[in-house]
């Protein structure tokens, strides 16, 4: 997977702009690695499912008839053609719930990462640029947070905030901003000493323009790579919280919650109740991780995230 990049030299026209060459390189790397295409396909499919779940889901996700309880997938002997992936203990359609579950995983995954990224990048920039006491405070805060397992802290915060989409996003952002802050700070420390930053300062540029226009663009590559892996981590964390019953609330279908509900069926053998939502998590996170691998190799093959 990683580092197995074979850069295929594409026949490029002799004269081209920098941007076009960049795009060509991006495309060449994409084609050289079929796994990335597969990953993009998976991710687009999941996004499609999430967006159009209300239209394509064959049944309501929250209501079911107990008469249809625990029906196996349609292709098995006792299966029912109406329920392609079977039903859960309350007779709800697994397929419909899996489709709706995509909404929560994606929404939480992406918004929490954007929020954590915004906070982490800002704090990292400020800490690395001004150093001194701001730096000390931010980095000690980061140390403290790194001394607690993320999931433990998330559980504690959610216990206070209570369940709900907004609280889950907030909690996951609070528990993950540190990574961005540390990496951005580290890079800012070296970038701020570069000649072009000194030059900008010499011609009288203010702190904010220097940070935003001269330093930020130079740390963005690492941030994009970290963020892509963070999406995978956040989707996994949300799933874990849902599994513990601490996420968006019992009424909303989530993949983690569905697996938790199926836990009681391990002995009785209704494997489809937890297997399909579980595989959905694996597939989605796999897609995100593969894209992260590709982004890392594209931006900086030396980065080891």
């Amino acid at each position: 997977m990683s580092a197995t990049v074979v850069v295929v030299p594409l026949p490029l026209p002799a004269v081209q702009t920098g941007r076009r060459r960049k795009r060509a390189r991006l495309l060449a790397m994409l084609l050289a690695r079929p796994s990335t295409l597969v990953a993009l396909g998976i991710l687009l499919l999941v996004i499609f499912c999430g967006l159009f779940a209300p239209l394509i889901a064959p049944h309501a996700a929250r209501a079911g008839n107990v008469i249809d309880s625990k029906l196996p997938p349609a292709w098995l002997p006792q299966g029912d053609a109406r329920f392609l992936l079977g039903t859960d203990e309350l007779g709800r359609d697994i397929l419909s719930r899996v489709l709706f579950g995509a909404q929560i995983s994606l929404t939480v995954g992406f918004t929490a990462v954007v929020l954590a990224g915004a906070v982490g990048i800002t704090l990292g920039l400020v800490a690395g640029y001004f150093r001194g006491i701001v730096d000390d405070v931010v980095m000690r805060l980061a140390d403290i947070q790194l001394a607690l397992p993320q999931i433990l802290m998330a559980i504690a915060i959610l216990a206070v905030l209570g369940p709900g989409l907004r609280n889950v996003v907030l909690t996951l952002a609070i528990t993950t901003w540190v990574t961005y802050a540390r990496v951005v700070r580290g890079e800012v420390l070296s970038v701020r000493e570069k000649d072009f930053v000194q030059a900008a300062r010499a011609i009288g540029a203010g702190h904010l323009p220097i940070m935003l226009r001269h330093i930020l663009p130079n740390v963005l590559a690492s941030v994009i790579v970290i963020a892509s892996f963070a999406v995978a981590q956040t989707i996994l964390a949300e799933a874990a919280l849902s599994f513990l019953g601490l996420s968006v609330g019992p009424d909303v279908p989530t993949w983690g919650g569905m697996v938790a509900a199926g836990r009681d069926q391990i002995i009785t053998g209704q494997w489809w109740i937890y297997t399909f939502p579980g595989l959905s998590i694996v597939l989605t996170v796999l897609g995100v991780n593969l894209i992260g691998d590709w982004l890392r190799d594209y931006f900086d093959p030396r980065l080891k995230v």
Partner: protein
Amino acid sequence: MGTYIIRRLLQSILVLLGVTFLVYFILFQTGDPTFLSVSTDATQQEVERVRHQLGFDQPWYVQYAEFLGGAVRGNFGTSLRQGLPVTGLVLERMPATLELALAALAISLLVAFPVGILAATRRNTRLDQLAMLGAVLGQSAPTFFVGIMLLFIFGGMLNWFPIGGRGQTGPVDEARHLILPAITLGTFSMARNARLIRSSMLETLGLEYVTVAWAKGLGETAVVLRHALRNALIPVITVIGLDFGALLGGAIITETVFAWPGVGNLVVKAIGQKDFPVVVGCVTMLAVVFITLNVVIDVLYGYLDPRIRRA
């Protein structure tokens, strides 16, 4: 080296103070837990008396200071639900959690090292590609799902292993109970370590001194294991320290899936029951384990790489 260790220890104490403060602050927001300790038909007067007795009528900083005073003497207060000392409750379960985390770490390294080294030495072969595909998959699977699938296949279907709890009747029974949870907990770090060891090995295999070793006519085993692996170990050791934190965190989920009687199980239940002192006690003691381990790793690291301790 001595000053380096002392500086790291002082830093750790500061971090630990921060951790307890943070957790105390978060949990203080959950509100007054007095009602958990009184019966439902208690009069207002009784509630007031218990509140005063437990110190919940004090401002938060007084409560925090009292907690700290007790904590340095190993006293984390009394469970609001079980009426037992928190320290005992947590310490009683700590061995189970440590056993699980260590077994997971052992399984993770036992698999990750051979796989990572083989993948690096057989770079770009089918074996390498297959191993790395497996690694990405392992990193993408949620802990609880791995656990449930293992339970379904090896516990429910094949009936090879018990489906939960910790062994009681001797080492064989204990091992049978431990194996599925340990694999579950170890999967993620196994996958990540295999990738890390591979890339770290690839880096050292390309260095000049390794080429010299080849040129001297040494066999593959000698070059790879005795020359390349040693230097490849350094980044891996740091990650193992971080790994242990992830393992303690993952243990919370794994213990829930397998009904493993550890600290993770205790803390999840305590949060559900708003058993405030138990939560703070669990979190603090888990943080102590994690921080201590990281100091040990840092010292080890400084020993392996002298450049670190001079920085």
